[in-house]
């Protein structure tokens, strides 16, 4: 049985009242969700609380789940909306790609004298610098980067989560990567 079919079966069993089925869903998705939420909010305890809340919200909305969609993408859509709600309540305008960001687009072509930025660092230092750079890039770019390269979703899956065209998602992930690459040289 594929992972997608397995998820659908677990959802059906949960709706029928089998608690163990939802327990299996939590076990399967807790780490991917925490890795996404954690990198979006930056604090471990807050991320753990939010991950719990997302599971609770998911459980109470299971009747609205449509089996034609992948359960995983549906779950991450709930998580994404949860984070947007949180920032909205805190009046943090983290989810709008403003004009300044639009003007700060990375170059499309490789320049003639482009330096090798990444090669300069050891792998462990590079990872640390990527984590720091991730905190600095705009939330909509960070979100798609984490889904693509940490959660390892396909571009099509990310497009399904966000309800945006695949081309837009590819472009956002590309922007995120080039912004991170540019920020690697920052000292702090």
């Amino acid at each position: 049985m594929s992972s997608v079919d397995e998820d659908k079966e677990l959802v059906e069993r949960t709706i029928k009242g089998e608690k163990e089925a939802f327990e299996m869903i939590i076990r399967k998705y807790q780490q991917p969700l925490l890795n996404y939420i954690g990198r979006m909010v930056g604090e471990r305890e807050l991320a753990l609380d939010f991950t719990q809340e997302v599971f609770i919200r998911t459980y109470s909305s299971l009747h609205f789940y449509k089996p034609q969609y992948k359960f995983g993408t549906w779950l991450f859509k709930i998580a994404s909306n949860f984070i947007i709600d949180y920032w909205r309540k805190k009046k943090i305008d983290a989810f709008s790609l403003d004009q300044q960001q639009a003007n700060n687009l990375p170059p499309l072509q490789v320049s003639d004298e482009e330096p090798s930025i990444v090669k300069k660092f050891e792998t462990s230092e590079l990872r640390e610098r990527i984590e720091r750079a991730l905190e600095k890039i705009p939330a909509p770019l960070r979100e798609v980067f984490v889904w693509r390269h940490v959660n390892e979703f396909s571009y099509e899956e990310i497009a399904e989560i966000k309800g945006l065209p695949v081309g837009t998602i590819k472009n956002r992930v590309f922007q995120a990567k080039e912004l991170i690459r540019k920020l690697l040289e920052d000292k702090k």
Partner: protein
Amino acid sequence: MKCLSIEQIYLYIEKEFSAAQNKKIEQHLATCLKCKKALEDRRLLLQAAESLPLWQTPPDFTQQVMARIFPAKVSLSAWLTAASAGFVSIILAIFIFFLVTGQNISGLLASLNQALWYFVRNISPISVKLLKLASLFVKLLQQFSEYLIKGFTLLTTIISPEVQIIVITITIILVASSVYGIRKKLLVGEKA
């Protein structure tokens, strides 16, 4: 083929192109040092990004979520069992106490009975006085409400509805402001 765009470089690394497109790109990369260098830099970036340390959930995370979704309900039988257990424990403790100290159980019952009687005898005059005071208060309250209703009836027959509204509004404002004033005074007193 002309030089690759940076987005194409990423998509090539992520194997997003068809076999035919890949072949064309590889042919170009074999001859273009600039694109090859740019590709190597991005490949290292992606390799590091895909091996970022994972955040771990605590071992009891699943149980914590399950406990929040399905809070444990204590059944009536469990309550009854707990109450019976408590009662039996008290009886057992009393029994053990008498067994250990060697005291006479009937003597204790007699002294308990005597203590209860003293309590009732001392408390009864006070409770009678309290009852009298309560009935007096109820009578006063009854009379006051009768006067209030009479006054209100008189008011509605003598004064026009517009004036009635004004009088009632003024009364409410006066009562509210005096309550507010008393509260504020009390608060000031607390702070002092």
